[in-house]
């Protein structure tokens, strides 16, 4: 295969990997603090994208000639704040209440919540049952190297995503809040004995995980210039898989898993150019094999730091 095509695939793969990593981080954070799977997390990404779109309608209605950068900043803030608040409310009213029941009940309840979110957007968002165009808010510049085109907007999105992941890393490893989150993940009861307000830490963790998902939603919209009510379904399945391959509870594992999954998809598309529609089948198939080979994830619990 020629080099420019390879470069193109690599760049696309990295973009997808970043989005998957951002979704997977949420799954792994929630599992870290509460030992549960929040199945609606993919649909929360979708809500993030639609919240940003709503922000776009609203803002351009008031200030029609706002600059792209300013608008991007504001609709990202709107999306992140709305979705973070949603995550906290979900944790408070539903997930913390389900703690006394089996984790399976949480799985089921959040699965149903995902359906509710999807259907609510489909039915109540104006024209929600059709794909919606997402505003173009990044300069349409690109550089060409032979057949390979590097889009400037992809570079920006990738850098923003990387910055978000680095901030999250610093938050978890260097701050007192991060230490409390790690303590709760390792031993909830002892964390409480040290004076950690468990409920508060859980709510903050849900705010953080949901905010990151909202950003992934905005990123998705900007990258594809289109969003739809069902986009969270596959993203959720992929984010969950990525978190599992990385060893649930491990943030770095989840990030690695996200990029690995994107790599598999890309590999599938490259290896089977005649049937690139099968790239997901290929990627999920490999995930199943990885799970059978390393049931506790690629990064073993012993050497890895959970959350």
């Amino acid at each position, binding site marked *: 295969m020629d080099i420019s095509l390879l470069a193109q695939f690599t760049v696309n793969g990295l973009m997808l990997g970043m989005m998957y990593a951002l979704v997977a981080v949420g799954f792994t954070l929630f599992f870290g603090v509460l030992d549960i799977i929040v199945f609606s997390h993919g649909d929360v990404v979708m809500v993030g994208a639609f919240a940003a779109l709503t922000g776009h309608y609203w803002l351009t209605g008031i200030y029609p000639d706002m600059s792209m950068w300013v608008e991007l900043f504001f609709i990202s803030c709107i999306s992140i704040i709305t979705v973070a608040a949603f995550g906290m409310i979900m944790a408070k009213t539903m997930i913390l209440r389900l703690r006394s029941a089996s984790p399976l009940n949480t799985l089921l309840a959040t699965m149903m919540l995902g359906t509710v979110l999807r259907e609510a957007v489909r039915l109540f968002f104006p024209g929600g049952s059709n794909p919606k165009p997402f505003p173009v808010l990044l300069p349409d510049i690109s550089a060409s190297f032979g057949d390979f085109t590097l889009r400037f907007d992809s570079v920006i999105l990738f850098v923003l995503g990387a910055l978000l992941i680095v901030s999250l890393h610093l938050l978890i490893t260097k701050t007192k809040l991060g230490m409390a989150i790690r303590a709760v993940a390792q031993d909830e009861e*002892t964390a409480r004995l*040290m*004076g950690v307000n468990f409920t508060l830490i859980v709510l903050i963790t849900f705010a953080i995980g949901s905010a990151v998902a909202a950003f992934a939603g905005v990123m998705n919209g900007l990258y594809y210039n289109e969003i739809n009510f069902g986009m969270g379904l596959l993203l959720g399945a992929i984010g969950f898989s990525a978190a599992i391959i990385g060893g649930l509870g491990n943030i770095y594992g989840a990030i690695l898993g996200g990029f690995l999954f994107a790599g598999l998809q890309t590999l599938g598309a490259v290896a089977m150019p005649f049937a690139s529609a099968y790239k997901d089948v290929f990627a999920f198939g490999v995930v199943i094999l990885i799970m059978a080979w390393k049931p506790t994830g690629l990064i073993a619990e012993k050497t890895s730091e959970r959350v």
Partner: protein
Amino acid sequence: MQRALSIRNVYTAYGKADVLSGVDIEILPKKITCLLGSNGAGKSTLIRSILGLTPPREGEIIFEGLPISGHPTHSVVAKGIACIPEGRRVFPKMTVKDNLLMGAYLESSEKKIKMNMGKVFEIFPRLEERQEQLAGTMSGGEQAMVSIGRGLMSSPKLLIIDEPSLGLSPALVSENFRIIRKINDAGTAVFLVEQNVRQTLAISHYGYVLSQGRVTAQGTAEELKTSDEVQQAYFG
């Protein structure tokens, strides 16, 4: 009589069955109060009740004149009570230093944290050498040091210790008792739960015997040493 913590007529249950049925205990300020009792007597349950991990279904717990029963654990701890839990419970994937810092979670003054860490390192020089080691990779004895050190990091008014010598060699056990004595000499009230009767009574001022969720004997350490209950149960 002045008291640090009063436990009055406390009933605590897991599910339906009562594990504690009407416990009355007074913990004295600046003294070591011990609680003896065989396996399953409800000693750890009593500690969980004090700290709000398993709140009592009936009765009162009063710390420095204010009720704390039913309060969430973090607000009980904020009042100046620290706990060295049964089984050490170090955070395995945190370094020794971070474990100690967790002990000072509610302390906002950097200066105080530094000072307390200095004190802990004075008691356990080993911890200073191993600051950066993950606590989960330490030996059992070293983990006991981490757990005790962590309990001292908040300079608590009352320190509750649940079976600190479990699983330690006799030499380490004696060392542990010496350290508890030292902590108490510095003015901290200690509530000590132990099975090691002889050494516990040797350092305690006052003690209680718990049996099947009820206090069956109490008295000064001297009185308990000669009491029938203790003689029968432990020395008989």
